[in-house]
């Protein structure tokens, strides 16, 4: 077992401890064990089916978009791919208002329907929850799948062209095996994200019928201060994550394309106009669905950006620092863990699990654990960093593990025969081959960390506020326009970080 693998296993153990200890701490502080109520089970049922449906739809809708983006070259393609990522990093409250602006009763869709005498569609209810979850997560699915398409070696596409493949043959022999290798993982990640959502589910769910497990946890904390119930529900959510992770791993098949020389080649198979039209429609619809709501809600904020007070810019700096630190830490950990995952499958399960961890249980548990030793408030920013690293790991691993597997299959024997190990291997083989997924992982982590509200609300003093927290404060003080301006700053920051990391990794590759 190499040093990298050992570090990876140690990192996975640390993550497992960070996930389980806080849960244990919350359970330890419980004052009673009443067990779960009937409405908790109802919440579990609702959580499960809406998450499965949301994840399924996100993945299905992302496939044509990712394929279109992967096989077409057009002006502004890079910008489209970048902007399509925006919903995923948007604060929930802004995204909800955006969806309402587009699909709500005074939105353009209801207006157009009204011209034809059709009643406006209602986005409140289960369909609203699913709509919002697809809006949030389809960008992630698209991005991960574009990575998958880019992972098909150019040599295979050339070979396919010389064999006279049409689009259907490509689908069968190249795209389908690629999708078999990555879709289960993508589905899993999105499924787990949707199981821990609650503010969206509540706001668009139309009321208490749309209660999720995470809301039940929140209620147990805030309303009943029933730590026992919160711990049971948190454990249930984690167990759900383990189950989902194990079953998705069983369904994943290696793609087996073999190595290539990273040539970018033309897609001879998809030149026909029907396919062109199909791809254009997919891209235009995706842009409309994902970008219009954001544009509509943020347009009024634009003129207020320059008038934002200094404190907002300080908060931006704090968010930037957290984002950069989180990106570095997460990618280092994820590299080691994906190396370890080659040998120990449980590492991947642990790494995926943190999405299923309730942020509230995590934050409260850490608070309880730290309280006897230090003042948790003084450690607010380091704790926010730690939690962000743990929460971003699954996304980084999702990008790195498949790439690491291919790397091992294609270059493992050559590396061994040359006795390349340790840092030499990392410098000559690992980093050059993994630069793209690693850059993607770093960018995604930075964007997520910049936009995360999460635990900062549990720990902060006013002078430690991050940008998302300031955004909520502005909204809570009736200052909607300034809140929108702050949201614009947040989007620029997050997407900017994402772009820089990705671009950096691409430029370095040429």
């Amino acid at each position, binding site marked *: 077992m190499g040093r990298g693998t050992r570090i990876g296993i140690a990192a996975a153990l640390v993550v497992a401890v960070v996930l389980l200890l806080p849960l244990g701490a919350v359970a330890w*502080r419980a004052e009673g064990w009443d067990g779960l109520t009937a*409405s908790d089970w*109802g919440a579990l049922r609702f959580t499960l089916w809406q998450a499965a449906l949301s994840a399924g739809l996100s993945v299905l809708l992302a496939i044509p978009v990712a394929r279109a983006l992967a096989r077409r070259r057009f002006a502004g393609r890079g910008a489209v791919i970048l902007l399509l990522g925006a919903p995923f990093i948007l604060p929930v*409250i802004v995204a*909800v*208002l955006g969806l*309402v*602006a587009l699909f*709500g*009763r*005074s939105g353009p869709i209801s207006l157009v329907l009204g011209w034809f005498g059709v009643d406006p569609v209602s986005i*409140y209810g289960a369909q*609203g929850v699913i709509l919002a979850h697809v809006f949030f997560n389809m960008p992630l699915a698209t991005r991960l799948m574009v990575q998958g398409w880019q992972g098909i070696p150019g040599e295979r596409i050339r070979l396919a062209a010389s064999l006279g493949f049409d689009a259907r043959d490509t689908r069968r022999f190249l795209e389908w095996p690629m999708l078999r290798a990555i879709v289960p993982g993508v589905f899993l990640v999105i499924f787990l994200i949707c199981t821990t959502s*609650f*503010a969206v589910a*509540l*706001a*668009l*769910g*139309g*009321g*208490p*019928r749309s*209660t999720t497990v995470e*809301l039940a946890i*929140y*209620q147990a*904390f*805030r*309303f009943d*201060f029933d730590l026992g119930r919160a711990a049971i529900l948190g454990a249930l959510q984690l167990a759900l994550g383990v189950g989902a992770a194990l079953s998705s791993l069983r369904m994943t098949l290696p793609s087996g394309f073999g190595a290539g020389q990273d040539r970018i080649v033309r897609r001879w198979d998809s030149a026909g106009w029907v396919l062109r039209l199909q791809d254009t429609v997919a891209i235009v619809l995706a842009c409309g669905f994902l970008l219009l709501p954001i544009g509509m*809600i943020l347009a009024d904020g634009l003129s207020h950006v320059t008038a934002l*007070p200094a*404190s907002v810019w300080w908060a931006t700096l704090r968010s930037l620092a957290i984002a950069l630190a989180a990106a570095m830490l997460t990618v280092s950990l994820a590299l080691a863990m994906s190396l370890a995952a080659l040998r120990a499958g449980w590492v991947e399960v642990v790494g995926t699990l943190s999405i299923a961890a309730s942020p509230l249980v995590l934050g*409260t548990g850490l*608070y*309880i654990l730290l*309280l*006897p030793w230090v*003042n948790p*408030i003084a450690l607010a920013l380091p704790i926010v960093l730690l939690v962000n690293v743990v929460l971003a790991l699954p996304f980084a691993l999702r990008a790195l593990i498949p790439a690491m597997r291919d790397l091992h299959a294609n270059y493992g024997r050559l590396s061994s025969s040359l006795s390349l190990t340790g840092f030499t291997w990392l410098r000559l083989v690992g980093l050059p081959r993994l630069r793209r997924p690693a850059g993607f992982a770093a960018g995604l982590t930075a964007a997520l960390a910049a936009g995360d509200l999460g635990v900062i*609300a*549990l*720990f*902060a*003093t*006013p002078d430690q*506020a991050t940008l998302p*927290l*300031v955004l*909520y*404060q*502005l*909204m*809570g*003080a*009736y*200052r*909607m326009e300034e809140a929108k301006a702050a949201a614009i700053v947040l989007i620029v920051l997050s997407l900017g970080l994402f772009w820089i990391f990705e671009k950096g990794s691409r430029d370095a590759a040429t």
Partner: protein
Amino acid sequence: MKLTTAIATGLTLIASAATAEPLTVYAPDYFASEWGPGPAIKTAFEADCACEIEYVTGDLLPRLRLEGERTGADVVIGLNTDDAERARQTGLFAPHGVTIEGLTMPVDWTDDTFVPFNWGHTAFVYDTTKLDAVPTTFQGLLDAPDDLRIVIQDPRTSVSGLALALWMKSVFGDDTQAAWEALAPKIVTVTRGWSEAYGMFTEGEADMVLSYTTSPAYHIIAEEDLTKKAAIFDEGHYVMVETAGQIAGTDQPELAQAFLDFILTEDFQSIIPEGNWSLPAKLDPAKMPEGFAMLDMPDTALLFSSDEAEALRDTVVAEFEAGLGR
């Protein structure tokens, strides 16, 4: 003589060094944020003492209960009457020791743990350019056509949502669940907190939003927008009173007491109207900002005492859940 002067000077220095530790005030996030009343109150208080206030923000009650005797708080501000009983039950609070008289609130104050600092009626706020038939009673709201669209907050996650559930309980008594059922078709959605709901309202998604009678004051004063009004119901409006209390185990009892004594002074109270967009607990009406005179106010104020509210909490949430079809 010189020696005693030197000793006295030394002692004064030590004393001021000892008080240099800040007074830790736990407050809700909105209160201590740059756009809440907190910063102005901090400045006003610090002007009269060689001391410093440090706000710590977050969910007050869960944090206090997690920390127990170990809490770092000296003073807690922002607990409303519906939460007060559970805060009292933690046993962490000392009597407030403030002489409370001359309050400008519609309710008698007998609580000896918590000092009220601001209040407001819960109310449904609407846009006069969009809504013509405005209900004048709560019953009228229930009877309104179902295309009247309202947004409310969830009683399980939000203090204003809980206030609505208690408001309906005090108006409809045993028929509260039926009232929720009548209200259900008009409820567009239920949000986690006030900000989401109010945002949906200002974006035009709902005709009415659960907020406060004082909300229009922000639009009048800060935006010169006169189109937002609170619908006034004849049955009366539930009142939310926010309070402050001192922690018994504080290491700075004098300073904590000084802060509590400061709460009902004019310096503090005059910050509330435009800092918190709510009504001060004790302020000469002549000293209120002009815009507040334009607000519609109910004649009847409804309020459950903190122990009544605590006893009803589970019931009213169950009525909400059942009435909205869960």
